[in-house]
């Protein structure tokens, strides 16, 4: 990924009126400085001067600004929403960058150098040469405990995180287990409490010691944070109620996967339903591999 140099030719080829990746160069620099700070203090929320973007808050304005600041002409971009490449949000953000940068886009996790995501981490393991950008609606994990920003900052400063367990305690008391299933709070690098954005807790273990660089952007609240490659990310839990991820009784109805995150799909109005991989690329790759091996068998 080449974030500094940019090719005016490439850009002019893509669009006649916008700067490369939409944002002006000064804004990108400002965001990159915030990103560098965020990377050096894993899990710490760095305020940045968020810009107005051509889509509304809640649609990924934070993630888009981060992506726009790190994307280079050589990058191959993948955008997913709830694991899928073909949902509205993913499609429009992908075409936004295709238009304003002219970079190549892909739906294949393994092919991408830069992935912007909402609510999932791909099932295919990420590599050192990849960057994943998360869209974050609410960055502050302590907000439900403490409404005052001055106070939450102080709590982060002093690592006063004991109160976070109160919510898990309530879960166990009410449901017999920790029922929080997404946006499950984590401690990064043994220090900062962080919201992983609304990914399912199924994905939490993937963040731990991940080889890829993980960046988080919250547009409305104008915060950036990061998890550098190979950094510890630990989910909160109790000694007698350890952290657990979701499991399903079914396998994926399409590809038969037994170890991916499944979505429930209603198929008719008579109670029909099926469970399929939420990661469409992963499911598709498996099907392709399956077809290929079928063909090999037929040919023989």
């Amino acid at each position, binding site marked *: 990924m080449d974030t500094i140099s940019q090719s005016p030719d490439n850009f002019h080829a893509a669009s006649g009126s916008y700067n490369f990746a939409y944002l002006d160069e000064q804004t990108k620099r400002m965001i990159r400085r915030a990103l560098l700070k965020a990377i050096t203090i894993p899990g710490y929320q760095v305020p940045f001067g968020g810009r107005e973007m051509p889509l509304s808050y809640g649609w990924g304005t934070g993630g888009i600004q981060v992506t726009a600041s790190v994307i280079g002409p050589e990058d191959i971009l993948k955008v997913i929403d709830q694991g899928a490449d073909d949902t509205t949000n993913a499609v429009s953000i992908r075409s936004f960058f295709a238009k304003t940068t002219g970079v190549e886009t892909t739906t294949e996790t393994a092919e991408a150098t830069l992935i912007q995501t909402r609510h999932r981490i791909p099932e295919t393991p990420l590599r050192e040469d990849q960057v994943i950008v998360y869209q974050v609606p609410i960055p502050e994990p302590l907000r439900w405990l403490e409404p005052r920003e001055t106070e939450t900052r*102080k709590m982060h400063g*002093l690592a*006063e995180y*004991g*109160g976070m*367990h*109160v*919510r898990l*305690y*309530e879960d*166990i*008391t*009410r449901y017999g287990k920790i029922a929080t299933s997404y946006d499950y709070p984590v401690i990064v690098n043994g220090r900062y409490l962080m919201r992983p954005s609304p990914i399912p807790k199924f994905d939490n273990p993937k963040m731990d010691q991940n080889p890829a660089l993980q960046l988080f952007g919250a547009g409305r609240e104008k915060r950036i944070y990061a998890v550098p490659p190979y950094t510890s990310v630990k989910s909160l*839990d*109790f*000694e*007698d*109620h350890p952290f657990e991820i979701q499991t399903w009784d079914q396998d994926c109805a399409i590809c038969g996967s037994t170890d991916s995150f499944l979505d429930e799909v209603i198929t008719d109005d008579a109670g029909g339903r099926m469970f399929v991989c939420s990661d469409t690329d992963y499911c598709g790759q498996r099907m392709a591999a399956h077809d290929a091996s079928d063909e090999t068998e037929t040919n023989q």
Partner: protein
Amino acid sequence: MNSGSTAPLLSVSGLSHYYGAITGCCGVSFDLWPGEVIGVVGESGSGKTTLLNCISGRMAPTVGKVEFCTRTEGLADIYRMSEAERRMLMRTDWGFVHQNPRDGLRMGVSAGANIGERLMAVGARHYGEIRDTANDWLGKVEFNLDRMDHLPSTFSGGMQQRLQIARNLVTGPRLVFMDEPTGGLDVSVQARLLDLLRELVTDLGLSAIVVTHDLAVARLITQRLMVMRQGEVVETGLTDQVLDDPQHPYSQLLVSSILQV
């Protein structure tokens, strides 16, 4: 109340707080000894709450010192220690019982979680043990144990106040600040709560500073009394002596103004 101890638990000297040109409290000095309960009385606006906020680490005084006898280092000025140390003190060795339980409770979580919070804040990470301890404390404050998993908003004022007390005492504090602890309660509930407070203070050897405008409360649970007026302490002494033989004109006025039933 242990007369054998040689150092005060809390030592306040020359404490004044000004809100701009307005005096909150002025020139207050006193020592609180382990096991002692001191009452602060005076009418609204006399500086009781300002004083309480200053000595409980919630508001730095304009001048003066507040020293607390920490477990490791002896007397230490609470406004010169690091904020981290002070906040640690406030959630372990100190308690603060608010007049309105809503200010001292987390209304959105169950009674058990309210008690467990302070334990979790100091590192407890075993659900079963936290629950057992919470259960013990609810018993000690004579709380209906069946309601441990209910939200505080479903409790009566007296129950909420008991819960607030248990929540404060669970970490075994040595000093508890109370701001009108029985203020919002029915007279009948007040009496039981006062008795409970007195019992807990005796059993646990707690020290307490109780701000109240109710002289009857002061008589029943405090040993020493400070009478405040316009930000200054005008009289101090044994509680029964100040109430039965007040010396300062204002104390006399205060005592003679009580309605006799």
